[in-house]
């Protein structure tokens, strides 16, 4: 049905075009907007599925465009692209549904969904980018189109957070540009390729390559929220819940982590990167981020802020897996790219559900909420246990592979880092789960009309309550919670996250 380039283009176009049309819709055209949104999101899932199917059956997809003499825009679908692309496509669909429910009746929806779509278009571009230049173009586009989402509410805090966000990401983007230009000066502009394309230079100009690596990683590390470049992320949690979900799980931080994966495997190549000695420092930065993020998360009372710091920690698992050499570690890092996405999006969905349904924003207000919102709290519990690395939730699989990979590479300290992180995760997630299920309902919301329990009692107007929250919000949270569970329970199936990660790794480390 599709030949290579047109499929790649249509994947980008579905959200790009949708986004542009959405800008021109009137605020009242809610149905049309929702229909367009869902159509765009669903089409993308189908197209990405086609892409996966095609690639699995030996097709190869590539698109080249001359941008300037010597500068090419390249799109291609390798395994890594599919990994990230399918994650984004699926999570975008659920986030769109959630966002429709979340923003019901609020102003500026056309603007919101317009940028929302463009944001995902940029993410797809990042996934499919075939060289550093293309990657950079979409990386910057992502920065620009997410800014209006972060400041969407227009409050002073939102604007301040937006400023911080822009400051950091433009700085990061500039570094990526510097790295890209510098590299093309010394090595020419080349496509991403497993094993990289700088191995000959490693012998002659190791110092330059090390510097380029550092610049690129520093630039990508801003979005990947590596400590100390993470400052924007906790600030940005003032954005509406669906945006947080997008920032923390689907697009922004993932773009950074994915970029690091590309740089290590497809620009430098593991062998060269190891020879240059740049991986161990990266692993140490990741380890510090893991512990630091968890420590800071433990100190937050604001639920979304706690989740934000947790992202810093969890995201660095990916970087850690990439920075430790060996197939097991790489598998752990790549699979966590997806696992972190589905688990963290669940947590943010739940945070939004609590806030929208009962006005709960702080952990201290969550006491007893399990009785009032059992499904939401169950989803939250599953994801929280996943973050701690308790089986059978997805996070366990990531932690397992990362730990095995660390020990196999002779870095036993990785296990210590993971275990410390698990303990800290337990420290800041278990109390939340505990108060939600086992404590008496909080005064903060217990008096309100919305507090009527779905168990037994009748709600306002004598009508028996059907659901604990708006179905458009609850549904996506349920789906991602089940996905988090399924990714762990069914880790052995070939089309699951682990199966895909294994296939990708088999290409990087041929058996």
């Amino acid at each position: 049905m599709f030949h290579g380039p047109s499929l790649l283009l249509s994947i980008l176009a579905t959200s790009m075009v949708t986004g542009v049309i959405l800008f021109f819709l009137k605020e009242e055209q809610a149905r049309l907007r929702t229909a367009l949104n869902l159509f765009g999101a669903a089409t993308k899932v189908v197209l990405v599925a086609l892409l996966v199917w095609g690639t699995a059956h030996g097709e190869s997809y590539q698109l080249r465009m001359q941008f300037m003499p010597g500068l090419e825009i390249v799109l291609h679908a390798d395994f890594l692209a599919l990994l990230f692309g399918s994650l984004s496509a699926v999570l975008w669909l659920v986030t769109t549904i959630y966002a429709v429910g979340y923003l019901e009746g609020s102003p500026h929806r056309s603007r919101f969904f317009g940028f929302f779509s463009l944001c995902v278009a940029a993410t797809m571009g990042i996934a499919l980018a075939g060289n550093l230049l293309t990657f950079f173009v979409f990386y910057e586009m992502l920065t620009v189109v997410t800014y209006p989402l972060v400041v969407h509410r227009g409050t002073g805090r939102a604007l301040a957070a937006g400023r911080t966000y822009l400051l950091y990401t433009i700085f990061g983007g500039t570094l990526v540009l510097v790295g890209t230009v510098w590299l093309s000066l010394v090595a020419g502009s080349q496509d991403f390729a497993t094993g990289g394309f700088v191995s000959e230079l490693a012998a002659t100009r190791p110092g330059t390559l090390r510097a380029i690596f550092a610049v690129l990683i520093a630039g990508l590390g801003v979005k990947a929220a590596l400590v100390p470049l993470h400052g924007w992320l906790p600030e940005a949690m003032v954005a509406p819940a669906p945006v947080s979900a997008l920032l923390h799980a689907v697009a922004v931080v993932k773009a950074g982590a994915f970029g690091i994966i590309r740089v290590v495997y497809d620009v430098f190549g593991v062998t060269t990167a190891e020879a240059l000695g740049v991986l161990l420092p990266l692993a140490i930065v990741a380890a510090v981020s893991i512990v630091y993020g968890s420590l800071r998360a433990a100190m937050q009372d604001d639920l979304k802020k706690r989740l934000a710091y947790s992202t810093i920690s969890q995201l660095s698992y990916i970087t850690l897996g990439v920075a430790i050499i060996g197939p097991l570690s790489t598998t752990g890092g790549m699979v966590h790219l997806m696992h972190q996405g589905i688990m963290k999006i669940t947590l943010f969905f739940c945070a939004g559900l609590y806030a929208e349904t009962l006005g709960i924003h702080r952990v201290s207000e969550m006491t007893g909420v399990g009785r009032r919102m059992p499904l939401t709290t169950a989803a939250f519990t599953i994801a929280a246990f996943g973050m701690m690395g308790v089986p059978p939730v997805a996070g366990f699989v990531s932690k397992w592979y990362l730990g095995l990979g660390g020990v196999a590479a002779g870095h036993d300290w990785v296990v210590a880092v993971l275990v410390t992180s698990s303990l800290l995760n337990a420290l800041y997630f278990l109390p939340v789960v505990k108060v939600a299920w086992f404590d008496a309902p909080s005064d903060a919301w217990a008096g309100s009309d919305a507090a009527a329990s779905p168990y037994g009692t009748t709600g306002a107007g004598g009508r028996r309550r059907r659901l604990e929250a708006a179905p458009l919000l609850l549904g996506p949270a349920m789906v991602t919670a089940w996905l988090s569970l399924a990714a762990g329970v069914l880790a052995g199936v070939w089309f699951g996250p682990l199966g895909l990660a294994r296939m990708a790794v088999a290409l990087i480390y041929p058996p």
Partner: protein
Amino acid sequence: MIRVIATLPLIPLAAALLAALPASPGRLRGLLMAAAALPALAVALFASAVEPAQLEWALLDTHVGLDTIGRVWLFFTSFLWCVAGLYAARYMEGRPGGRRFAVFYLMTMAGNLGLVIAQDVASFYLGFALMTFAGYGLVVHDATPEARRAGRVYLVMAVLGETMLLAGFILAAVGAPSLAMHDVVAAVATSPRAGVIVALLLAGFGIKAGALPLHMWLPLAHPVAPTPASAVLSGAMIKAGLLGWIRFLPLGLVAMEGWSIAIIALGIAAAFFGVMVGVTQRDPKTTLAYSSISQMGFLNVGLGIALGAPEAWPVAAAAILAYVVHHGIAKGALFLGVGVAAEARTVGERRFALGGLALAALSIAGAPLTSGSIAKGALKGVAPLAPGGWPAFLDVLLPVAALGSTLLMARFLFLVAVKDRAMGGRSRFMGLALPWTVLLAAVAGMMWLLPHWYDLELHAPDFTSPGRLWIMIWPIAGGTLVALLVAGIARRRPFGRGATVAPGDILIPVERAAAWAVGRLRAYPLPESLTPVQGLASLWYGTYAGADRRDSLAGAEAFVTRWAVAATMALVVIVLTMLALIAG
């Protein structure tokens, strides 16, 4: 068959979902609790051993199977869960929180059954974690201040245990060709990190098994749970820690002398320590919890011997199996009996309850012809195989420890007997006594059938020779005598409060130290760099007010976000660009 076995833990899990539905009536929940473990019981009784098979789609390299150890373990575990479930169905009637209890009960059951059939690291860990975390719901169910404190200690210890296990498993699995148990155990035996792995596994599982000095959560948590939950906690779940050791320590493969000595020594210490602290308790259920610590000590002696002398493992395994079945069922009967005695409203009912408790207590003490005597006899058969000078030493110590068991059981019976009870009125005695009687019948008859049913070769005690019989009887006679003596003295001059040790024993100084440290941290403003510690400390104490939570790192971060820093960063970018251009 393998599919049937793999389904066993899914049945209680499905039942938990069913029980969680808002529409599920109390009667259905009772039925679910009683029946969810029945299929497992049937399999344990009537299925033959099943070779491990792989389910490659599930988790990581899942293997399930049923060897002899698994069959026996599944038998007493599912039997206890069944009986306690039947008991719970009646026990929870009219008590608050029945739905929540049923859900956690069934989830804990699923974890416990799952870890028994697991034949690989990941699924064992899954079962263990599910059992541990769902078990928290059972411990804190009554929501009293004691239950909350017990829950907090339980959870902290549980998380520590889980993380130690994760680290141990990762280190063990690295050298193994697959995650199947036999591969992993072989890898542990030859691993260059064997010492660390064994230490992590010993401690990680030791928490659940109530091994000294990690037992401190147990005397708090086991008694505060609702009675049927106490029975499974102390009868079945405590044994899961032991099963973890059996599954993952290189028993029968290599001799680990150092660890062997440590385990035997700690086992003996626990056997005595449990008695010494246990007799000072005032709550019968706490006495039973200490008795469990003491009894697990006996089991650890057997395990320690096998770790030091690989050739002793087959004999020790059979003895350990006999002992866990005996102790699981007898301890379950004792815990359930406390609840039965509390509901006795007539003299006849009271006599029945105390009589049944006396039978179970005698069995724990190892009276001739009870299941305890057979289990203890089997364990004694292992002692001569111990390495070094242990056999002679154990010959003296084990009977003395048995005397201690008797003493502890006497104390327990005394505490139950003197408790004031309302007479007359409606009670649920019959509903509770019925399942309890099933358990008592098992206490009386089980051991005569078990070895034949599962082909266990036990060192059988000789009940016909007077000399041998005397060896069995004197610790019981001695213990009873001492108990009567102490009771006589106490009647004349009652011991004061000072004669009791607070439940949790060494936990008290640990908690005090923690409270002191937190107090210090709060009282004196520390240098900014230390405040994260303060934040963590206040978190442990469970307040989320946030007002007094100092957050110094926030200050540092605000600094980083300032524009001034941005300018510096921009400068860095420019310099780098120039460098790049020059170098390029």
